[in-house]
């Protein structure tokens, strides 16, 4: 069993890498231990914005703008629509202090060339009638949309499969054996695999796969709990965000997706009453409609997050044929297209269009 490139992990990053490599004519084999999107990508809100409340580190700005446009462009190459809802994002503040708190984010969005808008509470309510009377101020970032994440990674994958790539499910990679600067073999629960290159996109499990090589990378699971409501006839195309990264978006099917705190609790996957009640309250304070809806589902996802909030994109110092693409934290969907593109350039051209030095593994291993 062999291929030019083996990608480990069928999340949004692994499938994006497969897609961009396949577009360059590379034969890819994707190995997924469970099923498509069984990691963070299956729980995500899939919001793609230029900038946002958390601020975009300088190093990521070019990829941010590139990825934002790329995802919209490649939809044409997909066999199913992405269910893009391109209504922009509203960041709401519930009091003076919060208003001061979101101001820097507003300024950053403007700085990145986006025509953002600052609004008083009453203007904001006029602009978005779902906002309740408690909203003090808000700003609007038109450069924000969300997609159906399942369609996105399914789209990346299917477009790669059409170009001759393959995927195998139920294959868990245990170790990647190296031989000098080359890949010796990939050891899995289903036997050994061979490839010239390996792309490691195992999300929160990436560190495990590297540990036999005695390489430690600081990617940890950052849990997010999510509430999905029943579908509803009241419609909004805006993403509505509040402090602490809490936000709502309405899916194409009419359900509201409510997310989400960032918790560092390992892989504990039970929902907790305290957190879901807390963020349901915060969100319903801003959007009173929510108090009238029912929750259809509660679930959790684990974002693969790096300690310095930057992803890891680039080859291992010990072996230039083993490329890591992981640790995108809260914004893996946003950066999926750029990451896939950069990885494909790295493998095919040996260099990338946009610099990725800031994302190298060496920043942790020196």
């Amino acid at each position, binding site marked *: 069993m062999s291929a030019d490139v083996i990608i480990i992990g069928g999340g949004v990053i692994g499938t994006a890498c497969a897609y961009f490599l396949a577009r360059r004519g590379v034969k890819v084999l994707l190995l997924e231990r469970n*099923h498509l999107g069984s990691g963070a990508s299956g729980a995500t809100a899939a919001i793609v914005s230029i900038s946002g409340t958390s601020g975009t580190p300088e190093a990521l700005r070019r990829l941010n703008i590139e990825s934002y446009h790329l995802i919209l462009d490649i939809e044409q190459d997909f066999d199913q629509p992405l269910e893009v809802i391109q209504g922009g994002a509203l960041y709401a503040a519930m009091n003076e202090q919060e208003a001061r708190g979101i101001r820097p984010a507003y300024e950053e969005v403007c700085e990145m060339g986006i025509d953002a808008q600052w609004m008083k509470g009453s203007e904001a309510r006029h602009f978005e009638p779902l906002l309740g009377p408690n909203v003090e101020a808000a700003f609007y970032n038109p450069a924000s949309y969300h997609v159906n994440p*399942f369609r996105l990674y399914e789209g990346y994958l299917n477009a790669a499969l059409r170009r001759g790539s393959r995927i195998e499910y139920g294959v868990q990679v245990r170790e990647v054996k190296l031989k000098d600067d080359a890949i010796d073999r990939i050891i899995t629960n289903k036997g050994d695999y061979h490839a010239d290159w390996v792309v490691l996109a195992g999300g929160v499990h990436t560190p495990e796969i590297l540990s036999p090589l005695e390489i430690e990378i600081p990617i940890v699971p950052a849990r997010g709990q999510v*509430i999905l*409501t*029943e579908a509803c006839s009241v419609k909004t195309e805006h993403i509505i965000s509040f402090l602490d990264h809490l936000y709502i978006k309405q899916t194409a099917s009419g359900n509201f997706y409510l997310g989400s705190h960032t918790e560092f609790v390992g892989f504990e996957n039970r929902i907790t009453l305290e957190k879901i009640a807390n963020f349901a309250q915060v969100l319903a304070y801003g959007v009173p409609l929510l*108090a*009238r809806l*029912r929750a259809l589902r509660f679930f959790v996802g684990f974002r693969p997050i790096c300690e310095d909030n930057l992803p890891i994109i680039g080859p291992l110092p010990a072996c230039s044929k083993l490329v890591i693409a992981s640790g995108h934290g809260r914004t893996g969907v946003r950066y999926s297209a750029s990451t896939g593109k950069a990885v494909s350039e790295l493998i095919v051209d040996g260099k990338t269009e946009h610099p990725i030095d800031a994302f190298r593994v060496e920043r942790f291993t020196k």
Partner: protein
Amino acid sequence: MNKMSETKEIKNYRIESGIRRGKEIKITIDGKPARAYEGETIGAVLAAAGYRKIRRAPQRKDPRGLYCCMGSCYGCLVTVDGQPNVRACVTRVEPGQKIELQDGFGWIDMDMPGPKPGRLIHQQTELVIIGGGPAGLSAAVVAAKMGAHVLVIDENLLSGGQIYRQLPQPFQVDNPAALGIDYADGQALLSQVEQLSNRITICNDALVWAVFDSRQLAITRGSELVLLEAKAIIAATGANERPVPVPGWTLPGVMTAGGAQVLMKSQRVRPGTRVLLAGTGPLQLVVANQMLDAGMDVVAVAESASTRSAWRYLPDLIRQPGLIKQGLSYMYRLRKTGVQMLQPWVLQAVEGDHQVQRAVLGKVDSQCRSIPGYTTAVDVDTVCLGYGLIPSVWLTTMLGCRHVYNPMVGGWVPYYNEHMQTDQTGVFVAGDGAGIAGVLVARRQGTIAGLYAAAHAGVISTEQAARAAHVERRALTSLRKFRRAMDHVYRIYPELYANISDETIVCRCEGITAGEIRNAVRAGTLNLNDIKKRTRTGMGYCQGTHCTPVVAAMLAREFGAKTEDIELMTTRPPARPIPLSLLMGDVKGNI
């Protein structure tokens, strides 16, 4: 339209014998006054007034009506006093109510007062029993007799579970005999519960919807959010009906056999006029007889199993001569009344313009394979599907119990030992939720579970429990042999699922067709969670109860997956949708 309302006026779907209803009250349906009585559900009022179509589904705009009648399918959503998506079949009518039929999701009126924020209550008890059916109540009675304090939680408005369905309080019973033997048995059990009311607390209209911190049960009761801890837990959560789709099965007028029974037994309303029952097992005969009692025209009963193999199991079957005799007498009466008894035949399709008008049936062989050339059609307005039951294991899954696959008792069931204890210490099971085995087994298992749970809670010693459980166990052995024989005779063959065309809706909630599911499978997945994400199958109100078993059956029959290898879909809270307002109270301060 006019013609419809004409038939509505001349028909009286209410069964008047045996009971007197509560006070007549005034309500409106779509602005028009409708007849309603205290104690009736909105669903019963609609059925009694001749409404078949209750709403149009949001996705495909196809008409839907009452289907399960027990609050599990969410097919009957109506708007009540400005609040959309209320389940008609489990919501009581109130004087002055304005009921509107929905097109799609319904409209939320923000000018109406919103729901009250939830109130958090912490509670502790010795023994909690989830499910107030025969299993749960039997457990409660014996445990209370032994001295335990017991709390019984059930989401139904009334105790009794499926078979012992009671009538709402405002109804008065003049002639209990007209209500059948199950009603009497239920009354007898409930009066035992009543006598022990100093130790048994019954909590109805309360749903267990989540399990926090491994053992803390989250319960909704009105606007209360109860967090309950108990020394011992008995899950007696019963079963759901097995969905078997055919083209047209979402049309108004197609119901589950159990749903039809709920209307007749606990609301005294006829589900229709001319009926076909299609399914398998003796339950169908029970329902058909209840329909004759109710004065309905039972056109045909189609049994999918060829019971020719029955003689092979004769020694075990005659262990319960009473039950066999009862079955035969039901059959005799049906034949004598001129009901077409089709066996082995299966339902192939339901047809009709906006509601059931015709049903197409086909003959099958002993393994449920279609025999070409043998089809027939019957003109009916109601089709009842009764293809057996599937254990409801949501709660035991959430409690972390190990489950095993056993198709003979309905599929995935919690593992349990001879104390009815699961692999989770202190968690016991009984009744249909532990494997489909009927009311007699449910009661005995309930008693055993009650005894050992009482022992676990420290109320009696394990020796005491063992002594008292001894007779129950002996009776169970005999019952089990009988039951196993019945399960063989009425087994479910994969070919039962042979009539699902690409256009057939499989996920009723989300309007997903079999064709869409097949496409997802062809794209390379045999995983239920993956199929769910790719197609939305199972993402609806019913949490997949009415579609996941079908997807599993399709994977097995059409794509060669072994049913026991098809993992259960990841179980997540809530058990049923819960209002977010429940989380809006002072939850944080209390934890």
